[in-house]
């Protein structure tokens, strides 16, 4: 439980950080995933660059009809942000499902996204929100969709030298209802399955429905078949159930000590319906 020796830099500016990372240093944000891996010697980076202290990555602001969230914003800041609670409550709500208070005080949105743990909560939420992920390196910046960013288990589109710099989420009109529903793995508290739902209704039918899924398989995804089955339909209990049953279709469900693939698939179905119902109750 003792990490290998490493160097540590708390850079004064984002530019300095990006230069160091460009030279092979590893970013450190909240340390809630990285430090435990280092203590178990599963990771032995030689040089850590602390992004967590950079003011340049620590903001939540409204800009051009969207919300821009700096990568170093902590879960606590997300769950307690009045701006988010008012204009994109799903992103605030998701934080309340994570770990314990200590973890929420330290862990960051950028760190969670970059880490891409298959059982992490935010990937589902960002999928449902159709968020954009802004990557930066010493040489430039690019913006990716969640689909293009989350590739596989602990695998993202991040290139060496790149960091997650910002997450952009939409401002939700009052009509949108959202919900994140999570079945915890009992020991770790991570998602056995986690479902984020985002819904708009028009004249009794669903005009928009987005479903983000985490925990079920090696990577988060958008359950487009559930969405297709409900879009334009009436949100009856029967329709919801039938659509929710599609959530794991064609998905290679994970299996471990805590849940078999079948059980996970079943929970995903139940929790998809639950998330849809909750989102519906919140949409005008």
């Amino acid at each position: 439980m003792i990490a290998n020796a490493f160097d540590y830099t708390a850079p004064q500016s984002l530019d300095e950080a990006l230069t160091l990372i460009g030279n092979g240093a590893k970013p450190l944000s909240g340390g809630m995933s990285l430090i435990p891996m280092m203590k178990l010697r599963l990771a032995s980076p030689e040089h850590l660059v602390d992004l967590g202290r950079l003011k340049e990555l620590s903001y939540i602001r409204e800009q051009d009809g969207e919300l821009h969230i700096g990568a170093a914003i902590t879960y606590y800041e997300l769950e307690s942000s009045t701006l988010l609670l008012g204009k994109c409550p799903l992103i605030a709500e998701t934080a309340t499902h994570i770990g314990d208070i200590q973890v929420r005080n330290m862990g960051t949105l950028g760190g969670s996204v970059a880490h891409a743990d298959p059982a992490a909560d935010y990937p589902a939420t960002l999928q449902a929100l159709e968020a954009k992920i802004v990557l930066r390196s010493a040489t430039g910046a690019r913006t990716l969709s969640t689909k293009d960013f989350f590739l596989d288990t602990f695998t993202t589109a991040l290139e060496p030298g790149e960091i997650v710099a910002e997450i952009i989420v939409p401002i939700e009109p009052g009509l949108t209802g959202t919900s994140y529903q999570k079945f915890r793995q009992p020991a770790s508290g991570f998602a056995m399955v986690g479902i984020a739902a985002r819904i708009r209704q028009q004249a009794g039918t669903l005009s928009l429905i987005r479903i983000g899924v985490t925990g079920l398989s090696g990577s988060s995804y958008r359950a487009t078949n559930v969405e297709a089955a409900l879009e334009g339909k009436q949100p009856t209990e029967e329709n919801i159930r039938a659509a929710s049953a599609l959530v794991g279709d064609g998905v290679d469900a994970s299996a471990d000590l805590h849940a078999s693939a079948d059980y996970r698939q079943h929970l995903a179905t139940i929790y998809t319906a639950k998330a849809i119902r909750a989102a519906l109750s919140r949409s005008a």
Partner: protein
Amino acid sequence: MATTVTRIEKLVGKRLRRKEDPRLITGTATYVEDIKRPGMQHAVIVRSPHGAANIKGIDTTKAAALPGVSAIFTGKDITHVGSVVCGADLPGLRKPVHHILAQDRVYFVGHPVAVVVASDRYIAADAADLVEVDYDVTQAVTDPEKALAPGAPAVHPEWPDNTAFLYHQTGGDIDKAFADADVIIKQRITSQRLVPNAMETRGVVAEWLQADRALTLFTSTQIPHLARTILAGQLGIDENRFRLIAPEVGGGFGSKLNVYAEEALMGFITMKINKPVKWIESRRENFQVTIQGRGHVDYFELAAKRDGTMLGLRLKLIQDLGAYHQLLTPAIPTLSVLMMPGLYNFRNIDADVVGVFTNCVPTDAYRGAGRPEATHGIERMVDLLAAELNMDPAAIRFKNFVQPDQFPFPTATGLNYDSGDYGATLQKAMDMIGYDDLRKQQAAARAAGRLMGIGISTYGELCAFGPSPATPAGGWESATVRIEPTGKVTVHTGTSPHGQGQETSFAQIAADELGVPMDDIIVLHGDTAIIPYGIGTFGSRNTAVGGPALYYALQDIKEKVKKFGKMLLDAEEVTFENGVCRDPKTGKEITIQTIAGAAYRAMKLPPDTDPGLVATKFWEPSNFAFPFGAHIIVSEVDRDTGEIAIKRYVAVDDIGNQLNPLLVDGQLHGGAAQGLGQALWEQAVYDDNGQLITGEFMDYCMPRARMMPWIESSHTVTPSPVNPLGVKGVGEAGTIGSTPAMVNSVIDALSTLGVRHIDMPLTNEKIWNLVNGAKA
């Protein structure tokens, strides 16, 4: 005229906050990890990554070359150090010699192979990584039933059947009981391995003073004196030159009722390098190499009459011992046998115990130690019988309880239950929860398709270990009372409290007896240089054995106080009450504080009386004490997910007289949490190669505050006749009572689906499969 003495309020029986808490909650308590000695070195242990392997070679050259490394030791260096001690004995017991570092082979993951000593912990950890051990991996076996099967890999090559011992106990006439039976219920019931998970892991600081040939060793233990005796033997040093200190100990639950390889190893190292050395167990090591609890596969057979009268119980008990014996490993299942009849009146039992070696860390005493397994077994069997006979589980219990007029009650297993009224606790619990009404609600819920369960457990336990013949190291306890010249009081107890709260409850006893304020009393423990020999803390014995020792020491010292009072008041007789000696004839009084001063200044002494005010008492009880109680849990199962919701939890516990109900609540609530942990979440799972799959909190599910139900707690009070305080012991009761209540509740919920039994832990998926399977 005589002055009236105001009666000081008695403190025993009051809910008082703990005297030990301020230092704990302000972070100023001293644990082993907080101890620093000049020149102290740090040890990290190289452990086997394999469940079974031969060691072909160890290369320490790279590790030794790392700057800061002061020493490295391997198995060949420690052959003269005594091996790990097993204090239990059974006829024909096979005892593997477990050296403090592995010799030519390893037999569990975590087996210590080498130790690296360096100037700091980080260097030691790096160097440990550089030690190269060449292993020839062999086949492991981790499941006790598989280990017993012919052709299984041998944990110890000299004993290919993996059998450490066979133990048989019988009482009454079991064959007749089964011949007379109308119904026979058979069930295989497991009690899974659990990780004790004390909040503080183990740790040792050892310091050798060569000039004095004296060793000081700080260790996180429940048994400082026993540990000293054993370690002195292992290290070949004089016990009187060996000071062992248990500083603040952050929980044990039995896992520190032991003497481990690392304790002797640190003693060995400091004597070798002539510098102090520290070893702190990591959480990972704590999971892997500190003893685990339970580990039973039990086959029960219950014989009964059609009217529900139980006649006899057969048990075949397979105990997973692990790879070798720690201090009490083989003794634990014999405690299960003792408690197998539970609270019931039948007098025919037969038990066959097989102790099995597996390539896992040893099992040993874990909160309840053998009694939770037995209680879970009998309480499940009673419910199975009730189901078979279509009887109410409460009714069948009332029918079979030992009755109040039967005490002391000799059991078929050779115990003598001290006192009790088992029906009263169950009735009280049923009244509190509204049992009859609840059954009606359940019928309505079932009609509506809901899965609601009501689970009862009526448990008994044997604790307060105990008369010496029944306790390997002696079953007594010691106490010393010192009244200082100012009248302040210092109490020494041979018990070693580490969360149980005796610094408070023992001060309450002393305050009442001596009539001094609580604040004038301190209770010391855990340092062999200060405290007279004691046995330590385990088996719910502190209050029930250490308490009476203190009580009798106080009586002795009161006698002496009165002698001085008589002399100083020039009286023929005096009374002593509320800290004041009084001559009833003249009404003249003198306080204990004044008497204390006079006893030390010793200008004048009463006849045949020495100066000073010190009394020591060693006291042994004549029997165990037997707490009991009834727990009822209402649960509901979610058909969709298999989740279990605890709707209500009523606990009525009878632990005899209560010194401090606040401490009692704490013990019972914590115990219930641990018992629910076993019922619902916790399990030490090994793969076939001997890897502990649930070796960290990410996978080993510890109960959290948010998972706990509200416990509606109440009591009946049946004083124990075994000791003058009338106390029974409360440390383990909650753990023993809660588990079967929870499991019985869930099985009751699923009984409409034809479910008879489920093995623990009741994971959501297991439950969902049962609900799902029943649907299909």
